């Protein structure tokens, strides 16, 4: 059984906050590579990381990550 794809608006939210991938990575305590893979949909973040990203971008997890319709 394949993994359910996860859509995200992380890149747009990050850009709206005026942050680079490196800035956001530093805020949530991961490397730029992890932010890059999440934005590209290659890596599905853990619940903890999703919550940290939401907090760093002052958004809700649901606003950043969505299941496809």
């Amino acid at each position, binding site marked *: 059984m394949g993994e359910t794809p996860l859509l995200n608006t992380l890149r747009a939210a990050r850009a709206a906050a005026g942050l680079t991938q490196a800035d956001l990575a*530093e805020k949530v305590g*991961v490397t730029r*590579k*992890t932010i*890059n893979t999440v934005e590209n949909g290659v*890596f599905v973040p853990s619940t903890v990381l999703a919550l940290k990203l939401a907090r760093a971008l002052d958004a809700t997890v649901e606003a950043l990550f969505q299941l496809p319709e």
Partner: protein
Amino acid sequence: MSPALSDSQIAERAQSRRNRILWVFSILFFVWQGSFFGGHVTPHSPLRTVEIVMLGSHLLLAVVLLVLLNTGGGWRYGKAVRALLDDDSTRAHRAQALASGFWGLALCALGLYAAAPFVRIDAEEAAHVLLSVAVAVPALRFVMLERRANRG
């Protein structure tokens, strides 16, 4: 004087270095095991000093690669940098790489099992081949995943 690097910048550099080391040493490790078979002149005689040294170095390299792969490396840095070197995506890549290693090992064991009735394979030769696959396959797969993740 150059400005002090942040933990993220140090981790980023250490990450690239780790990938380069894993890549080069995995290839070296794999090539080296080929020379072990070629250089073993009389298979059932006691090992010569040169063979003991070769075997010992090969085992040492295997341990170093396995430890580097499983801990994330960066032992000379502080806790914060080590945590960045072993962040979420790194752990996910490691899990995928180890799964690839498992399948490589299973396929290799199947191949050896199938070849056993036709080719005489000593236990040490089989162990050597299995160890090489168990180390090289996950290490190379890990580097591949890390490099792909770093592309923009």
